């Protein structure tokens, strides 16, 4: 994305050609089910305008002419926002979401709307109505892309967009980033506006970029972030130039490796990859130690109580009148919200305060924390249980085990590739930072990517 933006601005590449090539590839690889809606005509029209602007020599935004795509819960004026659901399949947005407007102002071109787990409520990324997004790394078996931003993960990994927008309530950016071998950033809660995006859980939802590198995330985040009067939870803190922070230097960077609860329960290949990544950063001058976070076993209960309550409240009207139109797993998950009491919800928010303090405490003497993004690589679609070493585990809770602590705490967390399984599936790790210090998170991720090539590898596709 960063290089493409430079080439378009320099006039060496035509944005019309770039958009046309992406649209052709989207058609050719439709079997991956990355997109729900393709905005081909509008994208070509925007590309022609972008080309004219380059020819005219006027000022260009940092993403001028760069084709991106959006998880289908972000509003785009005049385009349907389905939330991946039959229930909203005819819902056409009246205006752009704040992040969409900002990305367009930066010059980005919207190619279309991406597949997702229905209403963002599932970490596998499955969708009955529009077809399951397929992980591009295994041509033989239909493997999950991870969710809920499954189409975003597939589109970026398969070259169907230069970058994508995702949302993350329990890991929905970082899980597909991990399973699809791309880089995805969940910013600090309050860094990026949620206005104009369908909610799953107002207090846990985070919007963020999904790209091929940390440098690309830096470029997108700067365009997206900042205070928005339409979202009262956004911060007034100024937005730094994240790209300028990418020095490639991690000398003296204090890295806390999360072993208890995280590395301890990961598959051996995942554990080895993350330990090797920590060693790579150490050889580059980072100071690595091990640290534990308190209350991790209670995170699942607290997260569930909050998300289930808020999601049930948001979906209450449709659950009363159109329950049969939800896909079964999402309907059943939403219905379970009725067993969460007000007391559970408040106790969960108390646990949340302790978890946040615990993460702050671990970062008091460290710059970032390092952990796997998921305990295992992509599983086969429909597989409810899998093996991690000698242990049989349930896929769904395992997928979100390492990511949701940082939705509860609100800290920024970036997933990036750090290896591959023997079967050729990507492995991801998380870099977690202090609130509103995405610059350090991205600096660490970018430095690692300058030392390795895992993020540069692409799946072989027809």
């Amino acid at each position, binding site marked *: 994305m960063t290089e493409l933006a430079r080439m378009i601005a320099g006039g060496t590449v035509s944005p019309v050609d770039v958009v046309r090539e992406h649209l052709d590839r989207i058609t050719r690889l439709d079997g991956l089910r990355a997109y729900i809606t393709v905005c081909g005509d509008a994208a070509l029209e925007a590309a022609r305008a972008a080309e004219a602007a380059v020819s005219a020599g006027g000022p260009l935004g940092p993403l001028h002419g760069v084709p991106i795509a959006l998880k289908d819960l972000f509003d785009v004026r005049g385009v349907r926002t389905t939330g991946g659901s039959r229930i909203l399949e005819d819902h056409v947005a009246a205006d752009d979401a704040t992040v969409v407007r900002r990305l367009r102002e930066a010059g980005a071109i919207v190619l279309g709307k991406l597949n997702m787990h229905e209403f963002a409520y599932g970490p596998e990324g499955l969708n009955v109505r529009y077809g399951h997004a397929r992980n591009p790394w295994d041509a033989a078996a239909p493997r999950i892309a991870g969710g809920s931003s499954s189409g975003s993960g597939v589109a970026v990994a398969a070259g169907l967009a230069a970058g994508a927008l995702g949302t993350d309530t329990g890991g929905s950016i970082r899980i597909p980033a991990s399973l699809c071998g791309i880089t995805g950033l969940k910013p600090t809660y*309050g860094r990026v506006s949620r206005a104009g995006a369908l909610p799953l859980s107002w207090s846990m939802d985070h919007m963020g970029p999904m790209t091929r590198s940390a440098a690309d995330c830096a470029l997108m985040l700067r365009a997206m972030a900042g205070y928005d009067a339409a979202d009262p939870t956004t911060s007034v803190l100024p937005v730094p130039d994240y790209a300028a922070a990418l020095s490639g230097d991690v000398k003296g960077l204090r890295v806390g490796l999360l072993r208890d609860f995280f590395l301890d329960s990961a598959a051996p290949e995942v554990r080895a990859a993350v330990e090797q990544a920590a060693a790579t950063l150490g050889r580059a001058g980072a100071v690595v130690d091990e640290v534990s976070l308190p209350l991790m076993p209670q995170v699942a209960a607290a997260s569930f109580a909050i998300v289930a309550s808020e999601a*049930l409240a948001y979906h209450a009207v449709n659950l009363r009148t159109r329950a049969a139109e939800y896909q079964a797993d999402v309907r059943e998950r939403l219905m379970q919200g009725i067993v969460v009491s007000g007391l559970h919800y408040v*106790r969960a928010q108390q646990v*949340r305060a302790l978890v946040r303090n615990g993460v702050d405490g671990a970062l008091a003497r460290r710059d970032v924390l390092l952990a796997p993004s998921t305990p295992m690589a992509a599983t086969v679609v429909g597989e409810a249980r899998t093996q991690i070493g000698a242990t049989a585990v349930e896929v769904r809770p395992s997928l979100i085990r390492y990511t949701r602590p940082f939705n509860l705490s609100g800290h920024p967390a970036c997933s990036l590739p750090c290896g591959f399984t023997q079967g050729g599936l990507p492995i991801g790790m998380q870099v977690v930072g202090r609130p509103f210090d995405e610059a350090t998170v991205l600096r660490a991720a970018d430095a690692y990517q300058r030392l390795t090539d895992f993020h540069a590898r692409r799946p072989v596709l027809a």
Partner: protein
Amino acid sequence: MLGRMAMADDLPSLRHAARLAGFDWTDAELEAILPAVDGTRALLAALEAVDLDGVEAAMRYTAL
């Protein structure tokens, strides 16, 4: 105490909880979630095990 408050371990109590929340789901719809509700109840019981004495809930509203 908290775990028992959330109790909905059979169809009548689950139906009661649903109606209290304003949902008129059918018995068939409720039966479909009964096995998962048992797991949910066990999960929520974990909140009871945490000492939260004096801890203020993490709910905040920003003025700006």
